[in-house]
């Protein structure tokens, strides 16, 4: 981590984004255990630096597609934690009026083209978004976020290939946490990194420390600028660690204790907090941000709890834009 | 001279028989009395014996085929005899040739009764039959597999109307509208068109009174024991409520078993004594009257009769009865006891030959066998019967039997 390169405001921003994600997801685990959340919850606890760093490199007008483990990326792109929490509780005040839940949060006005429940499916969608920018002649960059395991989907290859061929403004952001549910990437892949596949497409590829938000920010920033200038896509691979299981309830017994302990010393939030102190930021200032953020998440929970579930009549709305009633009836 | 073997009528209600197994094969010599073929109907299995001596020249109906009564199934003749062209079974080629020619007016009709006795009719035909008051029983179907389709119902309806018209002309009945001085609506009078149900009831009641010579006999019954029985049953069974109608259905069905002639229908030149005892129950609706049917009441326990009548009456009132649930009654009960009526002369529901009218139960002083005046629960029964079929003495005996059951339900078991 470099010294004095970034303003205090910016450092605080990285930190607050990370703790916002962490507090948000810790609340999810708490309420999941209480049996008050529906469906599956995939947390990104331990991976917050990737989300905070990468999204900081994007403009508000840029686009992302996120994964099933997408809370962090979506919060980092600017989603309102209240509305998001409400969605995760299936409430009518949520981003998707309770129709999407954890894996489908979207806010197009913030450039969030949705999390996705199908591994790899968001990758070509981001490429399509980049194609739209190119056709419209606008200069947004689209960032496809995906895990190491998604890089073995056929659409990864198809999407990277097409965007490379047509020099579309895309950044392929790989959150490499080494596991696709329970399978270690090295047991199913013959390359050391995902980024080195870039060679096959004749595009830039780089692997960075995914637990350092500044390192992520810097590499993604380069890729974004490269794309925005019309040079085409790059792959940025961020090495990180999924602290919890694939989903809540998975004890992740397929991972070795030593490796887990090794990563626990690299917690992005703990490390970055120390970094802030080293940078001369006062403890009380950090605590103050932490308290504000805790309060924000408590408010989000309260908002979600207080919000109503959608009315039964909502079940048939929003399937179609045109002629919805008739198309749903038969 | 070749002899045609036809599907015999083995029961009054039989409309077709199924070829089960040919015992004799083509070319076999047959003697009088030899079993030619085994057949079955919905009710029974039987064998057809040869009535002539000769050679089984041709099997026309194959195993598994349903053949209507009187339909040709085989030809017996002398060795080497050529079969009359008209009687000869059609070859596939013949049939093809016929199909190539545009069809003349009539498609082949077959009896529309399935092996289980269910009437095969299209949903549209059933609905149309209810609307037009056409009885599906006995109709032939021109649809696939003998299914009654709407056209058949229309035709039946026309026949029915034509028949009624003929009967009308013969007996020169005077319709109410002609007999009565002409009326015209005035002031606050309400003019309502006749509903289909009203029209059907009108037609049927008029036909019944015109066609069937009605005789009504009445008797008063001491129903103390039946009342006690009902009270006992109802207190013992919290989940069911037995009505007097239910009990009467059960008792009448038992009595009908002893006097099957009361459980019969009349046709042009015969009467059919029904094997099954199906009791119709007249149910009053706002717009008229409907008669759902408890089938095989003689074989059912009181509890299942009660459950069934309850369901039928609910359905009748909700207008959701299926045609099947309103057809094939062999005897009807009309209970006006609930309306404080003592006795009345019910009109027979043709083609049945009798109907029982039930009055209210009223406490009265009666003289018992010891010449004492005692209070008793009394009920008047009226039986209207068709004098073409039933005579007074038989009807009286039937009513006496029923009376005996009501006076002492134990009589049903002796």
């Amino acid at each position: 981590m470099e010294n004095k390169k970034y303003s205090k405001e910016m450092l605080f921003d990285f930190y607050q984004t990370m703790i916002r994600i962490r507090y948000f997801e810790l609340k999810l685990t708490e309420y999941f255990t209480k049996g008050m959340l529906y469906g599956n919850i995939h947390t990104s606890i331990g991976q917050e630096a990737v989300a905070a760093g990468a999204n900081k490199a994007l403009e508000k007008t840029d686009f992302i597609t996120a994964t099933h483990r997408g809370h962090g990326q979506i919060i980092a792109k600017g989603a309102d934690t209240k509305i998001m929490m409400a969605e995760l509780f299936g409430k009518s005040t949520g981003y998707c009026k309770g129709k999407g839940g954890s894996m489908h949060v979207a806010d197009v006005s913030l450039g969030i083209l949705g999390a996705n429940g199908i591994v790899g499916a968001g990758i070509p969608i981001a490429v399509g978004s980049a194609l739209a920018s190119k056709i419209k002649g606008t200069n947004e960059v689209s960032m496809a976020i995906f895990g190491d395991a998604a890089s073995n989907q056929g659409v990864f290859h198809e999407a990277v290939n097409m965007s490379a061929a047509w020099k579309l403004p895309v950044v392929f952001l790989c959150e490499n946490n080494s596991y696709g549910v329970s399978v270690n990437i090295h047991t199913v892949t013959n390359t050391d990194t995902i980024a080195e596949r870039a060679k096959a497409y004749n595009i830039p590829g780089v692997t960075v420390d995914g637990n350092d938000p500044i390192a992520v920010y810097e590499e993604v920033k380069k890729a974004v600028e490269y794309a925005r200038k019309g040079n085409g896509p790059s792959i940025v691979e961020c090495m990180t660690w999924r602290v919890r299981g694939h989903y809540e309830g998975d004890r992740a017994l397929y991972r070795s204790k030593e490796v887990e302990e090794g990563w626990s010393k690299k917690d992005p939030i703990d490390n970055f907090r120390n970094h802030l102190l080293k940078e001369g930021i006062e403890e009380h200032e950090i605590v103050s941000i932490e308290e504000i953020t805790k309060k924000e998440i408590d408010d989000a929970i309260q908002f979600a709890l207080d919000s109503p579930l959608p009315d039964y009549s909502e079940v048939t709305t929003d399937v179609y834009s045109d002629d919805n009633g008739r198309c749903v009836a038969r | 001279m070749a002899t045609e073997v036809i599907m015999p009528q083995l029961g009054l209600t039989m409309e077709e028989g199924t070829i089960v197994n040919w015992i004799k094969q083509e070319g076999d010599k047959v003697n009088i009395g030899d079993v030619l073929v085994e057949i079955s109907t919905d009710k029974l299995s039987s064998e057809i014996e040869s009535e002539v001596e000769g050679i089984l020249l041709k099997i026309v109906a194959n195993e598994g085929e349903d053949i209507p009564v009187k339909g040709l199934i085989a030809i017996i003749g002398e060795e080497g005899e050529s079969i009359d062209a008209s009687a000869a079974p059609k070859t596939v080629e013949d049939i093809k040739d016929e199909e190539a020619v545009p069809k003349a007016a009539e498609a082949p009709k077959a009896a529309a009764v399935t092996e289980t006795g269910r009437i095969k009719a299209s949903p549209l035909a059933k609905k149309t039959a209810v609307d037009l008051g056409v009885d599906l029983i006995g109709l032939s179907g021109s649809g696939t597999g003998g299914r009654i389709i709407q056209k058949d119902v229309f035709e039946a309806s026309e026949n029915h109307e034509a028949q009624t018209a003929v009967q009308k002309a013969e007996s020169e009945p005077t319709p109410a509208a002609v007999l009565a001085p002409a009326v015209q609506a005035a002031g606050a009078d309400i003019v309502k068109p006749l509903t289909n149900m009203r029209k059907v009831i009108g037609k049927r009641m008029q036909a019944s009174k015109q066609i069937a010579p009605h005789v009504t006999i009445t008797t008063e019954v001491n129903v103390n024991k039946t009342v006690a029985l009902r009270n006992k049953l109802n207190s013992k069974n919290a989940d069911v409520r037995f009505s007097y109608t239910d009990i009467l259905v059960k008792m009448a069905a038992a009595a009908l078993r002893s006097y099957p002639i009361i459980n019969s229908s009349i046709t042009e030149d015969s009467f059919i004594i029904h094997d099954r005892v199906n009791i119709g129950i007249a149910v009053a609706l706002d717009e008229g009257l409907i008669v759902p049917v408890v089938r095989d009441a003689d074989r059912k326990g009181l509890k299942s009769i009660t459950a069934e009548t309850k369901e039928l009456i609910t359905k009748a009132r909700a207008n959701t009865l299926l045609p099947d649930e309103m057809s094939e009654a062999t005897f009807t009960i009309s209970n006006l006891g609930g309306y404080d009526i003592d006795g009345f002369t019910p009109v027979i529901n043709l083609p049945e030959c009798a109907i029982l009218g039930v009055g209210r139960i009223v406490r009265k002083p009666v003289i018992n066998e010891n010449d004492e005046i005692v209070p008793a629960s009394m009920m008047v029964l009226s039986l209207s019967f068709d004098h073409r079929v039933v005579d007074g003495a038989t009807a009286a005996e039937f009513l006496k039997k029923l009376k005996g059951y009501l006076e002492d339900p134990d009589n049903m078991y002796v």
Partner: protein
Amino acid sequence: MKKITVSKAISEGLHEEMLRDENVIILGEDVGEMGNVFAITQGFQEEFGAHRVIDTPISEAGFLGMSVGAAMRGIRPVVELMYVDFIGVSMDPIMNQAAKMRYMTGGQVSVPMVLRAPQGSGRRNAGQHSQNLETFFTHIPGLKVVCPSTAKDAKGLIKAAIRDDDPVVFLEHRLLYAKKEEIPEGEYIIPLGKADIKREGKDITIITWSRQVYFALEAAAELAKEGIDAEVLDLRSLVPLDWEAIRESVCKTHNVVIVHEGVKRSGFGGELSAQITEELFDELDSPVERVAALNVVPPFAPTLEDAFFPHPEDIVKAVKKVLNK
């Protein structure tokens, strides 16, 4: 009126929409420089540029997914699968993305894309290039499914499909492309969800779509010689479904035969039959009959393929069976 082929009619519809709305783009295999194997987009790339008429790599899942993303951003992609059979490698973008995006996002996002795919039996293309897969799509809520038969319908419907804000699967029958028919001059639109009575009749309703419309008309002409007056109802789109038209016709004729070229088992005919039986039971004078392809793999040899999918004589036979004639 003018006389043009079905493929030219589709081409005209696409061309008019490309001119009308610059957000409309065309992409797929061989649609650019070659102008599609049936010349439907011939000359388009020169006229509109390679950024609006895009030759894709053979990456069906990739470019369908890409179309979804572009559509979410307000582009109106008309994406072509060279054969509908290729949906096998690319179903996810259609069924899990395009179809569901609007609902899953609580109505925030529309996916106004058109998936054009030729389909159909009869070209001796064997197992993997001869299927009719409309039920793949009708089974997925969120998709609209259009199956035009005539040149006039094809043009009017492709224009409606492009203007529709939902993902529309537009299934063209390959053996109809060369059919030359009269169509009106100038622009016109045929709304989705409007069936068309291609022949009026009173004895029986033949419900069908795509190429089988022509077979049904041939059958009806044959039946007329025997005094049977069949009505031929061309659904044109399966979702939305013109139930009113079906209801009216069934209530008129009381007998129904449904004809489609896809295999019978789980075909759309089963769905229609169920709806008719559920809602119009009392109108039926006979069981609803289906005429459809056999439940086998599309064969190659002409004898086998002809035995595989319905022909006019099969329809005639079915009608006679229903009417017991």
